[in-house]
């Protein structure tokens, strides 16, 4: 029996290849998106891990410091008095080629003797290299063979670098032969030098970027740690390596979570497709299943058969999807890493790493989703009665009868989802809420469809006669099919509306913010201001020279540093603001005047909105910062809007900063022109001056604004891509549902043709029907999309990033949504409609 059951099911699907294809394609695209996002995220994290591994190696702890680095003597004291465990000093900074300021390299200064226990990257690489020369020859560096090849260098060649404004020459002493790919990636574009060589290249300041420690686990380490802490200057922190890299990866967690959630939405659409196909196959085989039951197949066997079919679709789709996902990931990884580069830290990913676990998990997810989606249809199939084989009409009638109950359940789900959105704190709960709200509204769809068709019936009959009412009734008559298709389309369009409104609101907020924040006329900053982890700062001379440029009335200066804290690096901006700049800040404080007087006179700071959110700070709270004179409390004088960083920033006035940190560097300047001054002339002069400084770019106000928006748009590009993919899956769903629906109404169409409908009338009838479906989907998607947008803006973005955005809904986006729903539905209907219109009536009447 079961062998024949299986054969019957196989033949059924072979006869309905389009249906089978759509189910498989739905799962495939869903799985592909989920997997691609996972792989892209994973690869970015892995690349970051690799580069930190190369930096921190096997260190268990690191001593790090804020601006200016650590004094060298600390290292000697730690080795002599602090611990007997291995310790290694490290100097690290980004340098650029003298000939090409945009090409940056990483200079890594190490102590080869102390180094041995630390960096696996160098294990076995020292062979054949003259250690004496490495230690003593000025400017001696080692690079990997690949990097040498890229730069066109050979052993003995020298390379001109620009370091802190001065030209420096280094010589390739030897090539590191790295065989494994991971280490090759980790050491790409790295110049390895002896620590004193590196210090000399960087200007001989006698300071270290970091000290790595390898402390054994256990109580003896505690003793050592206490001793080491007592030796450290105030501005230095002792961190575990895990905490340090964890904090950095943690920074991108929210970003990655958002992507993950969106990708799951694509899978949800895919599952919808399986549901749709399964359901349709059951309805279509209703008689067949009834006959099978009459012949003795048990309900359980029928149930298993339908579920088994879904599992096969799930498996085939998931396998195809994995291949597709890996392809897609190579494209997405660039988008993901570019965003991470723009917003968080520099990371270079050159290829995706395919974790078998991730692939298997995606496949399991795909199969599970499609089996889950087929659950209800399978149960329905098991109820196919051997005695009264209900007609299709009865099935549909029961679907219509169930619509109000389903809607009630949907309303319940909707409320449950809304409730889940109430408590703050758990982002996962919020996403669960969003998902539940979506499912709830999907369950509402059949009832909304029936109601809308009920309202449209009379007007359509008035306008288009019997054919008009036929089109309207056709939608409700096949509710089991049309309902699912409309729900899938409405969801996809709602996601488009929601994400669109969210991005719109975000962009609008950013544009506003840029409008009042970028009040200066000319901006100068290091090439990679946003990722200036190790870029060399500019000196005071530049500040002097800039203030003397023609037409300049005032000048802001900015120094961005990161202070080590136990919760990861804290971004501190030291600002010296021209009077005109002050009015530009949008501060939330009880009194602006008081805020600015505190800023100028007291130990006070401003914090950005996301920072206040993350650290739960309010105006007048105290914030403790590790200064070089010890930890000090600062009053939070105001909270400012800032969309530049989701981590948040702390602003401190420059004079206060100078008192507490020994640092005379600058990262950026902005110039105010005298009224009536010639912008072009100042720009030209600034560019001339900037040409003498490496990695310094000059932008006009307009250029910087454009640049900022470009980064913004890039950040949301990937969101846009995902949105498209989710929409694509939904489109497939509608296409499948329509094709199926038309197919089963072949006989009806045959009768119509026999009665005298021309092919073009049949075509119009079919397209009108899909248009009506698009209309309902569009109507549903508008409120749902706005709710989604509201959730994303008010809940997700505020909770995961601490950003407050003004929800702006442009009527254009709503019109677009309506056009999208209608367009997609009609487009999906065109092909099946054309096919039906072309079928010869005698053929159609022969039926199945």
């Amino acid at each position, binding site marked *: 029996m079961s062998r024949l059951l299986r054969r019957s099911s196989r033949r059924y699907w072979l006869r309905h290849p389009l249906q089978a294809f759509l189910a498989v394609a739905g799962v495939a695209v869903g799985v592909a998106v989920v997997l691609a996002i996972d792989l892209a995220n994973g690869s970015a994290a892995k690349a970051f891990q690799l580069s930190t591994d190369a930096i921190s190696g096997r260190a268990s702890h690191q001593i790090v410091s804020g601006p200016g680095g650590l004094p060298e003597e600390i290292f000697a004291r730690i080795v002599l008095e602090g611990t007997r465990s291995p310790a290694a000093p490290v100097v690290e900074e980004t340098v650029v080629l003298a000939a090409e300021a945009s090409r940056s390299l990483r200079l890594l200064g190490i102590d080869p003797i102390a180094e041995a226990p630390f960096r696996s990257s160098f294990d076995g690489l020292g062979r054949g290299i003259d250690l004496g020369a490495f230690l003593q020859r000025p400017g001696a560096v080692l690079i990997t063979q690949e990097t040498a090849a890229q730069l066109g260098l050979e052993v003995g060649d020298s390379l001109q670098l620009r370091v802190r404004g001065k030209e420096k020459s280094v010589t390739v002493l030897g090539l590191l032969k790295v065989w494994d790919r991971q280490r090759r990636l980790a050491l790409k574009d790295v110049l390895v030098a002896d620590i004193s060589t590196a210090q000399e290249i960087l200007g001989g300041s006698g300071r270290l970027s970091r000290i790595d420690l390898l402390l054994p686990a256990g109580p003896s380490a505690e003793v050592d740690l206490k001793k080491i802490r007592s030796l450290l200057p105030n501005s230095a922190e002792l961190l575990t390596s895990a905490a340090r890299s964890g904090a950095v990866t943690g920074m991108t967690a929210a970003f990655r979570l958002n992507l993950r959630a969106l990708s799951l939405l694509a899978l949800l659409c895919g599952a919808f497709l399986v549901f749709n196909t399964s359901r349709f196959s059951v309805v279509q085989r209703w008689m067949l299943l009834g006959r099978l039951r009459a012949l003795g197949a048990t309900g359980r066997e029928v149930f298993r058969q339908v579920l088994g079919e879904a599992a096969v679709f799930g498996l085939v789709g998931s396998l195809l999807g994995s291949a597709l996902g890996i392809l897609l990931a190579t494209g997405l990884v660039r988008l993901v890493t570019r965003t991470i580069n723009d917003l968080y830290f520099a990371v270079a990913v050159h290829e995706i790493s395919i974790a078998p676990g991730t692939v298997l998990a995606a496949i399991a997810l795909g199969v599970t989703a499609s089996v889950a989606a087929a659950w209800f249809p399978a149960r329905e199939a098991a109820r196919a009665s051997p005695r009264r084989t209900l007609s299709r*009409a009865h099935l549909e009638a029961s679907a219509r009868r169930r619509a109000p109950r389903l809607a009630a359940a949907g309303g319940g789900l909707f409320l449950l989802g809304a409730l889940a959105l109430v408590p703050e704190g758990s982002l996962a709960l919020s996403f669960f809420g969003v998902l539940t709200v979506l499912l709830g509204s999907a369950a509402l769809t059949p009832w909304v469809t029936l109601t809308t068709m009920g309202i449209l019936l009379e007007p359509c009959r008035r306008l288009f006669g*019997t054919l008009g009412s036929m089109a309207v009734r056709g939608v409700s008559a096949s509710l089991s099919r049309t309902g699912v298709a409309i729900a899938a389309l409405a969801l996809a369009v709602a996601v488009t509306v929601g994400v669109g409104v969210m991005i719109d609101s975000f962009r609008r907020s950013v544009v506003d913010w840029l409008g009042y924040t970028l009040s200066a006329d000319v901006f100068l900053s290091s090439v990679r201001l946003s990722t200036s982890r190790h870029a060399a700062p500019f000196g005071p001379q530049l500040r002097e020279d800039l203030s003397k440029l023609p037409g300049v009335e005032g000048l802001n200066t900015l120094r961005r540093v990161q202070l080590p804290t136990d919760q990861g690096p804290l971004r501190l901006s030291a600002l010296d603001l021209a009077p005109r700049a002050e009015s530009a800040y949008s501060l939330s404080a009880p009194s602006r005047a008081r805020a600015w007087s505190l800023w100028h006179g007291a130990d006070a700071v401003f914090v950005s909105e996301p920072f206040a959110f993350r650290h739960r700070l309010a105006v007048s709270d105290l914030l403790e910062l590790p200064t070089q004179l010890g930890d000090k409390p600062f009053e939070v004088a105001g909270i400012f809007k800032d969309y530049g960083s989701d981590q948040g920033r702390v602003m401190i006035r420059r004079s206060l900063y100078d008192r507490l940190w020994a640092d005379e560097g600058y990262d950026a300047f902005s110039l105010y022109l005298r009224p009536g001054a010639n912008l072009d002339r100042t720009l030209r002069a600034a560019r001339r001056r900037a040409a003498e400084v490496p990695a310094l770019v000059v932008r006009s106000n307009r250029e910087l604004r454009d640049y900022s928006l470009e980064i913004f748009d890039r950040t949301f590009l990937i969101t846009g891509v995902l949105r498209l993919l989710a929409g694509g899956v939904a489109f497939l769903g509608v296409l499948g549902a329509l094709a199926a629906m038309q197919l089963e109404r072949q006989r009806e169409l045959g*009768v119509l*043709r026999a009665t*005298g409908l021309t*092919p073009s009338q049949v075509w119009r009838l079919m397209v009108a029907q899909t248009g009506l479906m698009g209309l309902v989907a569009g109507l549903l998607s508008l409120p749902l999309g706005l709710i989604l947008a509201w959730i994303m803006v008010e809940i997700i973005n505020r909770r995961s990033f601490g950003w407050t955005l003004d929800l702006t809904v442009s009527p254009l986006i709503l019109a677009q949504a309506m056009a999208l729903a209608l367009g997609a539905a009609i487009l999906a209907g065109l092909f099946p409609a054309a096919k039906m219109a072309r079928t010869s009536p*005698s053929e159609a*009447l022969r039926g199945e």
Partner: protein
Amino acid sequence: MVADTADTAPAIRLHRLEKSYREGDRRRIIFSGAQTVVEAGEFAVLLGKSGSGKSTLLNLLAGMDSPDQGTVEVLGKNLPKLSEEERTLFRRHHVGFVFQFFNLLPTLTVGENLLLPLELTDRNGAAAEERARELLSAVALEDRWQSFPEHLSGGEQQRVAVARALVHDPELVLADEPTGNLDQETSQEVLELLDRMTRSAGKTLVMVTHGREVVGLADRVLTIEDGKLVEAAPAR
């Protein structure tokens, strides 16, 4: 117009009709050189083994299928010479069809099913509704105007189908085993209804059937044998 010629010309004239279907790489010949004439107002019964081509012939007569060769002249028009569009419009105006099952459009009420052919021939409004209701009461179902077909019994559905085939006053009515799905008694009822209604309105009726009892009502009995149409003498 066609109506004028219909008085003089035969309702149906088949000449050297050739029709075959491809089945994989083989050809199944249905008609080879079939010919016959049915006069206007006649009731012709078409007999033949299952699969002999009865439905195919009706489809050819309705312009829903095309012959490989030969003449299919209906009401003076040679259908194969017309375009698809023209054939559809011809059918819309001059042909009524009753099938074995699934005649009625499930998304339309009984009343609307009857209105559709009228609407397609541009008859709307109160006059059209009056005509539709008249036909419905002729088949004794006037109280089912608002019902959907799924709530009607098989016999009732066929009666509505008969009414619909006649409502727009076509010259030719084609019925393909209209009683094949019905019990003996109901079947007789529907047959007599068809005969009465076409005859009283002077229409040509071609009916495919298995039931020998119809033969008694027919003017002409045609049988498909070896791809040809063979005429048997009517019982009357």
